[in-house]
């Protein structure tokens, strides 16, 4: 069971969390600070929708072996940033035929440049994501969902697929692995049910388990807690931490501050598309930029305080909220279209 995620020991990976936190304590607590061992380094990622800039990240690094939280008020561009990193969207600053020089978007994951790489290749290189609105494949069974996550199934080739003996052995291997993961996520009893019959929280778990089928070096969770019932929250947090302990770097987007405080080693704060602060969970919350970003937008705050809320910033935030809603609606639309 312990061997279900990353196999063996990776050199340079901080299995000891105390060590890791010590290292991170020495890191400069400023936006875009460099990390001792960065698994993901991002430069110049800009994404505009119409006249509005949704994401404008100059430089950010993610520490290998850490649980990094990406937080920020609604409309800060977190999900868009996720989409860009995982190849589901293309930055406006992407290198073009004529301009591949400085100022164009580039990011390096695990030593590999990922600038203009499609979503499938990103996932193949070991950076697997989940979605804010779970994308469990409803009309496949839980087990089939899991098997889809596996790598190196020769039967996924058309010609091999026709001859069962050619892929039977590998199928048995990945089925065993899937069974292990499902047991761990307490979904094993449901393995033959359609994924569509699972509860929201179970779908989140399934999506996470499915992502783990490919032994990713880094897993990116988009709001893993959204829509999960409180009873499941604790076990979900436990799962995420054990993932890290077994060798998978975690980057997640979350609104829930308790979760962020509870499990993250490092917090990156986004607001209005930019990285405004970075640091360990307990210190970053005191950062003035974070307070401005958060309290200004969505938390119980004195709305009479005009210094926080100029007309301009309200309009901007409104636009962003609208944009994000639109994106969400569009996603739903797309999903409907496919059913």
């Amino acid at each position, binding site marked *: 069971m312990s061997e279900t995620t990353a196999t063996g020991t990776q050199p340079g990976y901080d299995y000891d969390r105390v060590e890791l936190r010590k290292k991170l304590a020495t890191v400069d607590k400023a936006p875009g600070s460099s990390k001792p061992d960065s698994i993901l380094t991002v430069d110049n990622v800009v994404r505009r929708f119409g006249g509005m800039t949704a994401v404008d990240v100059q430089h950010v690094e993610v520490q290998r072996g850490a649980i990094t939280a990406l937080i920020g008020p609604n409309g800060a561009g977190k*999900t868009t940033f996720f989409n860009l990193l995982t190849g*589901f969207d293309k930055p406006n600053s992407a290198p073009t035929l004529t301009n591949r020089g400085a100022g164009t978007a580039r990011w390096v994951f695990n030593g590999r440049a990922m600038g203009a790489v499609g979503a499938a290749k990103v996932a193949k290189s070991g950076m697997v994501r989940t979605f804010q609105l779970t994308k469990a494949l409803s009309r496949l069974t839980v087990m089939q969902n899991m098997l889809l996550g596996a790598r190196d199934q020769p039967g996924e080739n058309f010609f091999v697929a026709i001859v069962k003996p050619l892929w039977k052995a590998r199928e048995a291997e990945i089925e065993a692995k899937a069974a292990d993961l499902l047991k761990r996520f307490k979904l094993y009893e449901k393995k033959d049910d359609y994924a569509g019959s699972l509860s929201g929280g179970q779908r989140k778990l399934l999506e996470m388990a499915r992502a783990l089928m490919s032994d990713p070096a880094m897993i990116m969770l988009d709001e893993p807690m959204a829509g999960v019932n409180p009873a499941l929250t604790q076990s979900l947090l436990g799962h995420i931490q054990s993932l890290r302990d077994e060798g998978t770097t975690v980057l997640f987007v979350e609104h829930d501050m308790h979760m962020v405080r509870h499990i993250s080693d490092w917090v990156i704060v986004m607001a209005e598309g930019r990285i405004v602060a970075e640091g360990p969970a307990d210190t970053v919350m005191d950062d003035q930029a974070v307070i401005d970003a958060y309290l200004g937008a969505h938390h119980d705050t004195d709305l009479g305080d005009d210094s926080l809320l100029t007309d301009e910033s309200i309009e901007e935030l409104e636009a962003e909220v*609208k944009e994000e809603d*639109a*994106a969400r*609606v*569009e996603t739903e*639309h797309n999903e409907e*279209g496919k*059913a």
Partner: protein
Amino acid sequence: MILVPTNTPPLRSSRSVRVGRRHSLVVLASMLMLGLLATIVSLAFAPGAASAATSSTCTVDATTGCIQGTLFTSDRKPAEGVTITAKPDSGDALTGTSNAAGKWAIPVKTAGTYTVSLDESTLPSGQYLANAATNDRKVQVSLGSQAGTLFQLSTTKGATIDNNNSGNDFSWQRFAQQLMSGIRLGLLLALAAIGLSLVYGTTGLQSFAHGEQVTLGGLLAYTFANVLGLNLILAAIITVVISAATGFAQDAFIWKPLRKKGLSLTQLMIVTIGLSIALQYAFQYFYGAATVRIQTANPKVVTIAGVTLTVQSYVAMGISILVLGGAAFFLLRTRTGRATRAVSDNPALAAASGIDVDRIIRLVWTVAAGLAGLSGVMLGLVLNGVNWQTGLQILLLIFAAVTLGGLGTAFGALVGSMIVGIIVELTNLVLPGDFKYATALFILIIILLFRPQGIFGRRERIG
């Protein structure tokens, strides 16, 4: 000769239920006449089409090929006893003679190129070969198939008849003429396209039954104006009102319940396909397979700056521009219009800001069907008439138009329609008529390659 598609029953000779018992004979007679007319016209004007007629004296088989055609005098009577010669590159010349139906056929046993010529001395008196310069023509024949060639007759010696409106004889005058026709087609398409685009924008649905709304408009107008003899304008108004009512009813009885039932868009799209099939054959059931033209009396033509169009065409274009202007005003300046655009932009947000989305969608369906009906009336009036499958043909052009302009954007639909209309008509300058729709669809595919969101569409977001 009109070729009847295998799964399309031929011209129906029966009463029409909707148009009423008393007029059934009139309808029948006019349909038959129209069918006959269409047959004759296509016989005379479609090069090669004459081969569709089964030869009376030549049977195609594995070792035989036929060169054949049908001869008509200038007043459209069969020309009998005319001798036609087919001379192979090497070997003896073969001859054939036209029969009482004007048909002639020459069986050949060797494939190859034959020089086919008409013996002018055997022509009926007072008839001369038109375009005599093309008398000796090369015809390619292969065994087991037919090759048709057409000779045209005239009452004057040495006459030339230009029936080839697809020739290479480019002139600016023809260009202007075709351009104007294109603008006319574009405007009529736009009426239907804006409706489709609005429906797509507000509901996400591509309605395949939208073309049938156009057909319905044309057929209804024909019924009121020609069968029941109402004043054309009155007939058009009634048609538009009924069309709009069908849109209203469709949303009330089909689309709204299905939205509430939670059907996916793909499912809904297939429902529209089913509706489209049912309507097409229902049209055929009631109106038969022939093409009906509204007001078949010879229309007056007006020539402006070298461009000749019927008066009705100018009126139709005027009405289109007015209605399109009205639609623009509605969308831009009225409260409901702005609400419509808001729903189009983002239904959830619109609903959240207090817009009654269902009411807007109902309105959009009603208006869309009404506009499609109006488009059908005018297509039946100024173009080649309407038959049961006009809608599907138009639908593809509308799809091309809205996709070109950008799915879901009303003004994109307008611009897209104009482009498609003009392309369709200008194609005639360089390619035969068969290709005019194909070109528009081809350009659609090319555009999708380079700018999938269309001219006015926004780049999509995923996730």
